[in-house]
């Protein structure tokens, strides 16, 4: 029935690249957070070193998507699929950068003892990792319900972020020598919170892909 071999192959390539980027970003997040927990410099450096691969995948998506638009004149859901791929790839690329930001914090903490054992930051990381996984799953399955469910988890991330900053502020007030490290750790909280927002953006792109409407899940 279908007469669009080349077009469908192109769309499949986009799909596979996005799934690959999703897996890459999840791993970068986990590795960066593991490195932070024990200030493992080597592990952090690997995260930083691998990031250009993610950028290359995003560029590849732009390249394939542009080619499909130029040569296949996509309409309706085909067009939304390509537009969503651009947007999702851009979100995933930013998520990769945020994992790198966490890894850079690890490098700046080289040789220091942590002022407190990390509990809530790894919890945030676990939730945003799950959100990332679910956002990619919602894309793979074109599952709007999953996209909405995933976006709800962002509330927990925001709550944890508030809690972490309060805790770190009190540590700074207790002892000014904590300020440098506590600031860095609160940045990590901010990075995780942004990470979750990008996962929510992916959910929005999935809803747009499936329904043609753009919801605001970041509320």
């Amino acid at each position: 029935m279908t007469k669009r071999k080349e077009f469908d192959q192109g769309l499949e390539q986009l799909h596979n690249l996005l799934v690959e980027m999703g897996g890459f970003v999840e791993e970068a997040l986990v590795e960066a957070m593991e490195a932070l927990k024990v200030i493992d410099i080597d592990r952090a450096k690997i995260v930083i070193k691998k990031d250009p691969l993610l950028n290359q995948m995003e560029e590849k998506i732009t390249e394939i998507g542009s080619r499909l638009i130029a040569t296949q004149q996509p309409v309706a859901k085909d067009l939304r699929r390509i537009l969503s791929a651009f947007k999702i790839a851009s979100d995933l690329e930013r998520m990769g950068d945020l994992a790198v930001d966490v890894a850079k914090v690890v490098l700046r903490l080289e040789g220091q003892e942590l002022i407190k054992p990390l509990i809530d930051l790894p919890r945030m990381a676990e939730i945003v990792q799950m959100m990332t996984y679910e956002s990619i799953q919602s894309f793979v399955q074109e599952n709007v319900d999953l996209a909405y469910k995933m976006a709800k988890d962002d509330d927990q991330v925001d709550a944890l972020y508030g809690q972490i900053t309060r805790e770190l502020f009190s540590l700074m007030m207790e002892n000014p020598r904590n300020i440098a490290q506590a600031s860095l750790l609160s940045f990590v909280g901010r990075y995780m919170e942004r990470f979750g927002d990008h996962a929510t953006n992916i959910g929005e792109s999935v809803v747009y892909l499936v329904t043609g409407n753009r919801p605001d899940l970041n509320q």
Partner: protein
Amino acid sequence: MEALININKLNLFYGTFHALKNVSLTIPEKAITAFIGPSGCGKSTLLRTLNRMNDMIPGTRIEGGIAIGGTEIYSNEVDVETLRKKVGMVFQQPNPFPKSIYDNVAYGPRLHGVTSKKALDEIVETSLKSAALWDEVKDHLKRSAFGISGGQQQRLCIARALAVNPDILLMDEATSALDPISTLKIEELAQELKDKYTIVMVTHNMHQAARVSNQTVFFLNGEVIEYSDTEKLFSNPTDQRTEDYISGRFG
């Protein structure tokens, strides 16, 4: 926008073949409406009912009605010649008469009784200007219409249709025999003409429908599957069959 053309439960048979099935459509005036669909879906048949071109095909039977500006065009009182003056048509192949450029445009007005040279000169100039052809041919109006390019011939046919002051212009695959530049010129021309005329076009080129029209009707097997604003139909169609067709999954 006023609903200029009202098609009401139209059924058309070629002998035993049921070519149009219960088609009801309201086509607004001073806008471009495009009919799309795979070959044999009935889009050209419907276009041809709008100026009764199907009357000439033996064995054609029509049920239901078409009203243009409130007048039922299949009633016995309607004079087909008058109808076709009001509803002009441009075909796939440019079909100028074997006459001069001037005489092609003046043909209709002369037929309808205009004899004054001054009046004819004026009509020819206005029509050629409206068809965006005047500047290219004004210096050799007496030359044969066969001496100009296919794209120019098609614009000449449009000028010829405009010369009798129609309300509606039907375009049946009017650019499919033309090169891309000539196609673009006709598309731009259609955009200009829609301020004064109601245009209904049949096209196999979906992207042309997407570029040019205000509304699009998608036909399949003699039925209207979807009719909506062109932007909506090409960005988020309601019916899966429309989506499949415009995405090139069949047809």
